[in-house]
């Protein structure tokens, strides 16, 4: 990457702040990271702001306002590499549930004066607006994966982030399959690894917070789950959470299951 210390910027769009907090949650690594890179713009952590261009931009959040449509273009222009962090930036986040409803109705439910509020009909991922160099998944992202992505971009290699399903991690942890053994509905077979198979390790089914794995067969999982008694409305809700806007989950939730 750049000669000298690389310049890092962290940007926020519509989000809960949890993914950028993950950087501050690197308690053992934070001061080392700050020594290795120039944290040029990170408003949640610092008043200091160094103007672009930046070698690496981490972008959190989804695009939900007309102003942010413009802002994301400026972020892209100022960044050599742009990496999205988390389900909001990579798939539109939980706020993409508006994409399946009327945003005007949502506004009226929440605000007495909807006319004060500037918002778009849809919540969209960053890649719907500008080219993205890498999407780091998760709601929230995993700390270890974040450090891996930072290291990879700073060194100039591909990040080593697996795209297989949660089942692989679950087997490696030697968990008993919650679906086979306890009949607990689990999205692990269609969800990308990265969390370390957390939910099955805590005796619950995966709820898909890392979004769809690389090659998924969501209809097959749906069929299997329906065979165990899960209703179609329950299935639709299962696919419509934090990655509702990700293609494989969106398509499955919209599929006419006849």
């Amino acid at each position, binding site marked *: 990457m750049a000669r000298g210390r690389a310049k890092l910027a962290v940007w926020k769009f519509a989000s*809960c*702040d949890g993914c950028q907090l993950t950087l501050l949650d690197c308690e*053992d690594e934070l*001061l080392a990271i700050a020594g290795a890179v120039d944290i040029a713009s990170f408003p949640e952590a610092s008043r200091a702001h160094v103007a672009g261009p930046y070698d690496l931009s981490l972008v959190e959040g989804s695009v939900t306002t007309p102003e942010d449509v413009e802002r994301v273009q400026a972020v892209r222009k100022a960044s050599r590499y742009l990496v999205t962090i988390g389900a909001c930036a990579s798939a539109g*986040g939980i706020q993409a549930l508006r994409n399946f409803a009327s945003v005007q109705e949502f506004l009226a439910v*929440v*605000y*007495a004066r909807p006319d004060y509020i500037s918002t778009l009909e849809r919540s969209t991922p960053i890649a719907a607006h500008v080219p993205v160099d890498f999407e780091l998944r998760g709601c929230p992202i995993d700390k270890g994966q974040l450090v891996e992505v930072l290291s990879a971009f700073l060194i100039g290699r591909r990040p080593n982030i697996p795209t297989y399903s949660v089942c692989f991690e679950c087997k490696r942890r030697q968990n008993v399959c919650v679906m086979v053994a306890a009949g607990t509905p689990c999205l692990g077979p269609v969800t990308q690894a990265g969390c370390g198979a*957390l939910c099955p390790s805590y005796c619950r089914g995966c709820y898909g917070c890392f979004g769809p794995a690389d090659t998924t067969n969501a209809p097959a999982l749906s069929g299997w789950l329906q065979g165990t008694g899960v209703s179609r409305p329950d299935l639709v809700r299962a696919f419509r*959470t934090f990655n509702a806007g990700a293609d494989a989950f969106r398509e499955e939730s919209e599929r006419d299951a006849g």
Partner: protein
Amino acid sequence: MPAKTPNRTLRIPALARVEGEGGMFIRTRDGRVTDVELRIFEPPRFFEAFLRGRRYTEPPDITARICGICPVAYQMSACLAIESACGVTVDGPLHDLRRLLYCGEWIESHALHVYLLHAPDFLGYQSAIEMARDHRPDVERGLQLKKVGNDILGLLGGRAIHPVNVRVGGFYRVPARAELEPLAERLRWARDAAVATVRWVAGFDFPDLEPDYEFVALRSDDCYPILEGRLGSNLGLDIAVDEFEEHVVEEQVPHSTALHARLRDRGPYLTGPLARFNLNFAQLSPLALELSREVGLEPPVRNPFRSIVVRAVELVYACDEALRLIAEYEMPARASVAVTPRAGTGCGCTEAPRGILYHRYRLDENGTITHARIVPPTSQNQATIEADLRAFVEARLDLPAALLTRQCEQAIRNYDPCISCATHFLTLEQA
């Protein structure tokens, strides 16, 4: 005759070292503050709207996503509200485990605010990273203290941000006693670090400001409240959690996507560490009490800049309390109690790190949510933050604009505002 004070405009387009997106705008004319706006432009995400039609089991996971810094607060208020709607009380060891998890969040959130967000204001740095050049042992202590909070969240919740192990009725999996032992070891270190934190921040300089606040917090005779008790104030408010909406009204203002709350017929109030401390001082642990007195902190503490010291005292308390809960822990036979849905409404209120967080849900007989309302602490504090800024600026109109603006930022950070949280609320009451 003194020189005429020039008219001023103080502007912060985007506040740093807060969670979420907000700014500040202050205008003065003839020595008076004419406009004060804490501008919140964080885009709304409509949680209350899309909670409608979801199952009664879903709010803990969904509402956690309102805030990455205090997800446990959302999970706990949601659980209490839904359990109340279903006529279930979760007590005994499961309640204690919830309290332990919540202590983890207080430690994580308070350490983040004290060390990374607020202390740089008092010592004149742009960030904790810059501060570490001159105060490295302090910053490292803060980071490790924060990490112990995250360790509790990680063990009990599965992960620090958006824990997976919380459910309506309790948990999915409860730890064995032996799993908690290593935590106790780290918490003993953390308690010492918290004591050092109190002494460190107590030595800062605090600008003068002592408004007559109405402090609102949960109140309990049995403990320093986190997820128990009634709502009380220093001016006589004493209500059950489900009376909250009879006493608190919210209104929309043009410069904010978050509603302003006030007590009906009384006005703005303050929620958060200062309120908890002032209303529940006697319930602190002996060590936290001793430390408070050592640094001259006794109720009523009305200087909002001293909230950093109160947060440090609460860090001591949270470590003490977590150690007590671990020492007395006995693994419950079941990880959760059964919660059968029924038609009805339930409210829940808990002490998020930034103050009271209120949830209300209405369920139909199948357990589908038909109505949801969430009132986060920062939206309740907005009007009080603006009142603080008005009083603070009027007394300092002779200061240079850059310095005054910077002190205003510090005054806003007294509240550890969480703007991502604040931008979610509901006003319209459907019949």
